[in-house]
């Protein structure tokens, strides 16, 4: 049973997606577990043949319990959760067939699917991966393609859902631990977004809606790139020591309707293009709200970024998610007076905040980090 959060102690196995004798490959989703954060798909990071299932459906077991055995197991690729952050998922067993999510979300550069098509696929329980050719631009899969494929539904996915009272308990535990154990310090920087706003308008103007990006994408990329300059803000504090991460996996905070919050990882956010980040955000938001996140997405973040959006507050000062050592917040973009070359002008501004662990860094490092974010947002074309 993988540890899927700072204070997760146990989980309930609600579905096996493999059976003994199945061959499994690294990265396969093999089971679904119910946690305080909802139903999470459990992946394996080994290749072999599943020989035995040790935990039956319906059983609640502690974190660390072996769920299944894999014969001939060998680590084909590094586990996505192998960074020094959270306890990596223990041995489990995978499966050869694709995940049983009803929808395979679009991935930039591979499968292009319109949001409406994805939602219709979810409603019709159609596996988009089975649609060979879409009728849209460059073979993208459109609503009509999904409806045509509706006659070939896949096996129903496990019943998923979020128990918001349980999620509230999980948030309470993690945030209480954070406030109890982590000596936070807080820094704020106001950033002129004129260049970024103009650049986004030009970027989006000739594009169809599905290819447009949101300002949040620039925030995410700038926050990730700036971490390359201040490595001590990216990693985990465990066993009385800071352990840096060589990868920048941003936990993107997503609010859930009806309450609740979850921050699954956008892996290697510093290396992704803006279009890829937009696709990743769209995918994560949809799956987080549907209850289709994967275990590695919850265990691998090395930092958290939160953006309150255009209906949020003007600034947000976050609480670090243990064992991470920093959280970056972007407030609502507002038009305010701003001094430019000795004159007062109206400018779009955003308040960027950093909450960081004083055991890992001092304010000087944090200040340099925020300065880097501000600098990067002045040259959006380079993000």
């Amino acid at each position, binding site marked *: 049973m993988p540890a899927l959060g700072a204070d997760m102690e146990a989980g309930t196995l609600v579905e096996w997606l493999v059976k003994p004798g199945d061959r499994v490959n690294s990265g396969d989703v093999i089971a679904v577990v119910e946690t305080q954060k909802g139903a999470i798909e459990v992946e394996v990071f080994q290749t072999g043949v599943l020989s035995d299932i040790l935990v039956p459906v319906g059983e609640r077991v502690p974190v660390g319990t072996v769920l299944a055995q894999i014969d001939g197991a060998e680590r084909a690729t590094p586990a996505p959760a192998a960074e020094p952050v959270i306890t990596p998922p223990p041995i489990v067993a995978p499966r050869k067939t694709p995940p049983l999510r009803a929808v395979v979300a679009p991935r930039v550069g591979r499968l292009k699917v*319109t949001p409406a098509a994805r*939602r219709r696929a979810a409603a019709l329980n159609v596996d988009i991966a089975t649609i060979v050719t879409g009728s849209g631009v460059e073979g993208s899969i459109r609503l009509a393609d999904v409806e045509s494929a509706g006659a070939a539904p896949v096996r129903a996915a496990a019943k998923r859902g979020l128990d918001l009272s349980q999620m509230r308990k999980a948030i309470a535990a993690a945030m209480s631990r954070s406030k109890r154990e982590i000596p936070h310090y807080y820094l704020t920087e106001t950033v002129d977004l004129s260049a970024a706003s103009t650049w986004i308008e030009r970027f989006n103007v000739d594009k169809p*809606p599905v290819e447009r990006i949101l300002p949040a994408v620039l925030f995410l990329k700038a926050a990730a790139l700036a971490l390359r300059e201040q490595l001590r803000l990216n990693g985990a504090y465990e066993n009385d020591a800071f352990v840096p991460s060589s990868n920048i996996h941003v936990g993107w905070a997503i609010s859930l309707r009806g309450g609740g919050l979850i921050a699954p990882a956008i892996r290697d956010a510093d290396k992704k293009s803006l279009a890829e980040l937009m696709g990743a955000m769209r995918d994560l938001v949809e799956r987080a709200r549907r209850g289709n996140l994967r275990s590695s997405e919850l265990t691998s973040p090395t930092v958290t970024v939160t953006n309150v959006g255009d209906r949020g507050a003007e600034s947000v000062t976050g609480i670090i998610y243990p064992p991470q050592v920093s959280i970056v917040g972007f407030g609502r973009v507002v038009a305010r007076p701003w001094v430019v070359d000795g004159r007062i002008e109206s400018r779009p501004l955003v308040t960027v905040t950093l909450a960081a662990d004083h055991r890992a860094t001092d304010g000087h490092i944090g200040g340099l980090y925020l300065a880097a974010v501000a600098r990067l947002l002045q040259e959006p074309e380079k993000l």
Partner: protein
Amino acid sequence: MTDAEIRALILELIGEIAPEADLASARDQDDLREAFDLDSMDFANFVVALHDRLGVNIPEVHYNRLFTLERAIDYLRDAVAQ
């Protein structure tokens, strides 16, 4: 399309984006974002869905004309007719 058809389509698409939304409570002058708790990603997906269903490519500068049902119906009626 008739205004009633456009209204029904708008609510259908919002229902796909925000399944828990109480669509029956929708009033023509309400801000859809406030009424149904749509964030900027939700609204972007709404515009994508309109493009997909109606073939209408709505520029970003016109997004504010979709914020209420009343204005959205007016806008989309004209856009579809063009």
